[in-house]
């Protein structure tokens, strides 16, 4: 379904196609690693693989990342996080509450429990407003 909210625009949307065995361990550390479906197999174990349906741009601070109905506000986006996502479908989503990216690939949201992700779930990046 298209996003119904006023002034909200979905700039990225994908669907989860596989969830690696170690994803829940990484989640316990406040981290979800995402890759496009064509990522090499050695990355699958700890990754959520997803298929892009729509991409205009990667998340920037102030955007909302939505995983199904859970919403997280982006606090920081590292210098290579945009290239990672747009070229490789790769996202390092960290619930660390930091407003500056510690590592260039990081996308930070508030400290919270990240959701258990399963096949068929939806990832969206929603621009705050236009």
């Amino acid at each position, binding site marked *: 379904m298209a996003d119904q909210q006023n002034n909200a625009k979905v700039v990225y949307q994908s669907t989860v196609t596989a969830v690696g065995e170690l994803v829940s361990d990484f989640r316990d550390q406040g981290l979800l690693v995402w890759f496009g479906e*064509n990522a090499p197999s050695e*990355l699958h174990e700890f990754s959520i693989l997803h298929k892009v349906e729509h991409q205009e741009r990667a998340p920037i601070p102030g955007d909302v990342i939505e995983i199904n109905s859970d919403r997280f506000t982006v606090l920081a986006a590292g210098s*290579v996080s945009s290239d*990672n996502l747009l070229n490789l479908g790769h996202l390092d989503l960290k619930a660390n509450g930091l407003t500056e990216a510690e*590592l260039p*690939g*990081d996308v930070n949201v508030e400290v919270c429990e990240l959701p258990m992700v399963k096949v068929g779930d939806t990832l969206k990046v929603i621009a705050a407003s236009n």
Partner: protein
Amino acid sequence: MGEYKAVTIAAGKGGWGGPLTILPTDKKKYVYSVTGGGIHPVAQRIADMTGGVPFDGFKSSVPFDEIAVAVIDCGGTARVGVYPMKKVLTVDIHATSPAGPLAQFITKELFVSGVKPDDVKEA
């Protein structure tokens, strides 16, 4: 039988680890580019100078024990540790240091970062 030459790769500006010496062999000849947008220029240069065979990890795969070196453009969390964990020599074009869930596997003997094409030199 291929003919191979060794290169030395030192950490670039702000980088960490290394220097690594890369010498492909017939059994370990692949220069593995796990990067966005095809074979990265650093991987291409390593392949050109060593006689190794470049390939794009997002398009095909080879067994780990046939990889001479992995070239990544990792922002510090995931790929940065995967290849060192498998004892594969790893070159990150970004200037990262050991971090992330796999940081324990990232050592100076296996990993070098911040690498640009000019940091790859004849051994």
